[in-house]
């Protein structure tokens, strides 16, 4: 199911589209484009919608994420504890070098499990605890 937040302003829609779908029982959220303070609410509402509907095994597929500013990182920070408290996790996949760099600058690579591909990230939820990261 492709979804695009109805709240997105025209300029925001040009900059960011967010698609969400279920893959093997894992909720995959794929932001495409640029996440900044203007577009972050589109991403955040998709994340919020997943958590509120009890989908706590989440993969953020970053393959088409070109750019992320602190507002987008804040959206992840704002939900991670709730997700983990509920027994789930939020994992990241397919980061471009530029996006990976931002995560590294902030130390996010220590807080989140990051995988090379969406498939690996999805499968990691089926692996026993302590499975190998990419």
């Amino acid at each position: 199911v492709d979804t695009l937040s109805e709240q997105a302003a025209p300029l925001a829609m040009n900059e960011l589209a967010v698609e969400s779908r279920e893959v093997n029982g894992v909720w995959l959220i794929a932001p495409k484009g640029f996440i900044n303070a203007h577009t972050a609410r589109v991403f955040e509402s998709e994340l919020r919608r997943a958590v509120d509907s009890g989908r706590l095994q989440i993969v953020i597929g970053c393959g088409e994420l070109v750019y992320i500013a602190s507002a987008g990182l804040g959206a992840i920070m704002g939900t991670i504890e709730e997700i983990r408290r509920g027994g789930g996790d939020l994992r990241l996949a397919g980061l471009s070098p530029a996006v990976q760099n931002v995560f590294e600058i902030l130390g996010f690579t220590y807080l989140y499990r990051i995988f090379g591909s969406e498939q690996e990230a999805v499968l990691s939820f089926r692996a026993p605890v302590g499975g190998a990261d990419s």
Partner: protein
Amino acid sequence: VSMAKVSAVATGAAPQIRGRQPRVRPARVRLVIPSNTSYLGVVRDVAQRVARASGFDPDTASQVALAVDEAATNAIVHAYGGAEDHEVEVCFKATATGLFVAVIDSGARLDPRRLPEVDLQRYASEGRKGGLGVHLMGRIMDSMAFRRVTGRNVCSLFKRKSGSPEVGG
């Protein structure tokens, strides 16, 4: 809705003084945007292009663009509190040493340095979100300063070119 304005002064070699290295005049670019987050993409694009034009590699230029985006975001979201009928000015000055950027607003007094040091683990456990932008700016840029000048907030950023001596803004 007002439009973003960009003005630029092209880099040009000043007349050569005999016996000396030709001096390159700093390139200045000035961008004025409405205090509306929908213009942050314009800030990012201009910052990226100015950083590239002043000699930074694409990855560094992207980081500089992110830092400038964060400074403009602070001005719009925090200094103006989201009010959209103001302006944010972004001034770039590219020199042989590096790139100076000033992000200026006329909003409420703002000193993001007063934000507590970001402790990511604690942030995650408390679901907190603020302060990440300033933290990013500080990590990306070689210097960062916040001043209140005649009723305006001035956030000064400097990114040194690799190989240039340490000169801060």
